[in-house]
């Protein structure tokens, strides 16, 4: 077969979700045997694009050609058969099996269901040897490091004659020296006639590794260029953020004074010596990319995870457990609403008062009338779309579910409200409603901490912004004066 110069051609690709167009008329080519980087902020549409390529999502319209032929995959398996393998962040290896067994998993030769040893196994093992000789094929995969597990997956993809391997943030969980080794392997894949589509938030990696880069923003394709034509990081950052609009932020009329929370030298597995102060009525944003330590910081303050260092809330040390934090007057809207925030199988009425049962009970007995009244009050106040207080939370839309989690925390009557990714996966309307609530609370003298990986969100509502990278607090900015989104993006991607 005549090989086309472009291994992948994407034309006018569109993907609509109920309320957003995640991929908006995207067209670009991926050249054969190159490392093609894909960058963009959170929500730029990268993941959706990748999901369409791997068969996890279906496009709304548009054309994709693989090796010059029309391409469509209905499942990850079909994508793999057609030549697109993916190295997900969640690795797809079986720890209890050996390297060799993992390599042949799903492509074993069998007779009547019994495994047959054939030349195939030897050939695949040979492929892996040529990539990374230090891995013993008889070793259990569970004993390998994350980096080596990735290599096993890469070897498997190469052996299955993949044309393209998609790598989604492969360096997020591995060490510096392992990254070097991985990069050497990725560069070596060119000789094996494999094209790599590489996704990373760490921009330095892109300059080190990439041949081409495609930048996406707000679901649109911004540009595809050879890396050599890009001058430096800041040019790339500019392409990623375009013009960020700050008009929504209005500075506080009154200065916030009383310090309500004092964090001193907070450290744990994911956090490194973090210190800061929060004042009454202040909205503080913690901005960083995936893995920067935002969620870990929120959980440590809340007492949900262990930590070292000191924290004073209203002058008193915090108790180190969520129930104590709630008693002291702190509430957390957790990152994952379905698994951490919501009681999905319970009714709205059971969900909303859950963090402050004292307020709806007398000596341990629930006052049903008050419970119902409070529930209706919050349904009304936050405009939760439901026809009954007895509806299970699971039956509501994402935005309404998030409003329930927020109602729960508001009803806790906390003076310090922490919100971890408060608007993830919800539509624009619900988003602005949530922002309005946050501003209202702040005006009432409550302090708000927002942990977010969406820059516009942080920039639009926060008075003070802290930048996190790799578990460290890298910079502090007052909104309104020295705010420079280019600089922010530079810092949170590891620059200085």
């Amino acid at each position: 077969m005549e090989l086309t110069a472009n291994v992948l051609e994407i034309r006018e690709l569109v993907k609509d979700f109920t309320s957003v167009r995640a991929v908006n008329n995207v067209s670009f080519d991926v050249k054969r045997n190159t490392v093609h980087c894909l960058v963009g902020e959170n929500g730029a549409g990268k993941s959706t694009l990748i999901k369409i390529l791997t068969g996890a999502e279906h496009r709304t319209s548009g054309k994709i050609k693989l090796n010059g032929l029309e391409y469509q995959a209905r499942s990850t398996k079909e994508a793999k058969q057609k030549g697109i393998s993916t190295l997900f962040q969640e690795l797809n290896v079986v720890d209890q099996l050996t390297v060799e067994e993992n390599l042949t998993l799903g492509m074993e030769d069998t007779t009547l269901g019994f495994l047959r040893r054939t030349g195939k196994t030897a050939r695949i093992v040979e492929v892996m040897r040529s990539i990374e000789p230090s891995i013993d094929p008889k070793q259990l995969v569970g004993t390998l490091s994350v980096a080596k597990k990735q290599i096993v997956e890469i070897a498997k993809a190469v052996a299955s004659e993949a044309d393209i391997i998609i790598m989604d943030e492969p360096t997020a969980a591995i060490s510096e020296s392992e990254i070097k080794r991985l990069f050497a392997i990725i560069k070596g894949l060119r000789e094996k006639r494999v094209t790599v589509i590489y996704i990373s938030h760490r921009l330095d990696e892109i300059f080190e590794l990439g041949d081409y880069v495609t930048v996406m923003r707000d679901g649109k394709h911004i540009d595809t260029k050879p890396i050599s034509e890009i001058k430096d990081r800041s040019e790339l950052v500019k392409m990623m953020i375009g013009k960020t609009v700050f008009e929504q932020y209005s500075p506080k009329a009154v200065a916030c004074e009383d310090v309500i929370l004092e964090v001193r030298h907070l450290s744990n597995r994911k956090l490194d010596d973090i210190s800061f102060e929060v004042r009454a009525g202040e909205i503080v944003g913690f901005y960083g990319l995936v893995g920067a330590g935002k969620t870990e910081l929120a959980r440590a303050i809340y007492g949900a995870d262990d930590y070292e260092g000191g924290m004073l809330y209203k002058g008193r040390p915090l108790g180190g457990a969520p129930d104590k934090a709630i008693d002291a007057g702190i509430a957390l809207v957790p990152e994952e609403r379905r698994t951490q925030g919501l009681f999905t199988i319970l009714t709205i009425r059971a969900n909303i008062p859950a963090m402050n049962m004292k307020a709806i009970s007398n000596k341990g007995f629930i006052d049903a009338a008050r419970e119902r009244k409070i529930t209706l009050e919050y349904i009304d106040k936050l405009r939760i779309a439901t026809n009954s207080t007895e509806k299970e939370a699971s039956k509501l839309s994402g935005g309404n579910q998030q409003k329930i989690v927020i109602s729960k925390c508001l009803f806790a009557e906390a003076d310090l409200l922490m919100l971890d990714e408060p608007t993830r996966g919800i539509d624009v309307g619900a988003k602005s409603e949530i922002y309005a609530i946050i501003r209202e609370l702040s005006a009432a003298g409550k302090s708000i901490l927002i942990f977010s990986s969406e820059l516009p969100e942080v920039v639009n509502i926060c008075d003070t912004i802290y930048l996190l990278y790799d578990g460290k607090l890298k910079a502090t900015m007052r909104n309104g004066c020295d705010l420079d989104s280019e600089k922010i993006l530079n810092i949170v991607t590891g620059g200085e």
Partner: protein
Amino acid sequence: MSMESNNKRPSTFLGRMSNDSFISLFMVGVLIVIFALACLIVPNFYKAKNIVNILTNNWYIIILGIGVSFLLITGNFDMSVGGVIALSGVLSVYFVQGVNVSPNELANGLGMPYVVAILLALACATCIGGINAFFIAKLKVPSIIITLGTMMLARGIAQIITRGAQRNTSLPDEFGILGNTFVPGTSVKISVLIMVVLVLLAFAYEKKTVSGRRIYLIGANPEAARLSGVKVGRQLASLFIVSSFLAAVTGVLLASEYIAGLSNRGTGYEFDALVVALLGGVSIAGGFGSVLGMFVGAIILSVVTSAATGLLLSPHWQFILKALVTFLAILAQRYALDRRRR
């Protein structure tokens, strides 16, 4: 958009109620159908005496079912209740038996006053729940493993004390009173009265108290419960202790009824308690169910066994019959719930 859905009022009473009440009501429906069928087929089934019998003869399973249901709602199992019945029964006998009254060792006990002996037996048997609580709440070991262990531990101690048999001699007269007294003017035992009171208390607890609500929060999502300020470990620990205490009470009542402490008393009751809870719509995945449902489940089982006896069905077939009813009832439940969710 939100306006539109706000205006859409539920049209029916059934549509408005929670899945929880729906399933309880549905199982009452199933009970009525099975009862009606049994009345048609089995002679004299509808007679008051038989109905009273049906409502009361499972009292010990229902008492166990209270603790087991609550734990099931939190997503945990208590398989130790059968063993605890044996232990508390045997201990109550052993503590009260006279000292050195006979050359037969199984006739000699510790000679305690009756009330002290009963209270001490309850306390000792409840310690099994303490062990469960420690391992499950503190060390986070899966409950099914630990309670299978304590099930054997409890029965093992009972076997040692009875030498694998029973103790039934040199007991004071008052020992048999508790289990063999009837509510004046009726054929209802005190034990049944205790069961009814406990079920009502448990129902009030689950529906009306903050502590009861926490059971559902934990079962629905333990992590969200913790982040919402529920002391999950403490709550589970007290439930395991209560479950063992209820089993201990049952054991003392049964020992009194039979005036004997048997080491194999209550064998398999842990499964019966699970079956009635599941029949009553308690979810094995947690977060869902009610003691009232469990009570209905127990009555369904009772109707079936009673009908089988009335039809002179060989006792060998009774297990198969129970199995069939269990399958059918749970299938009907799933079907009803799935239909409703659509």
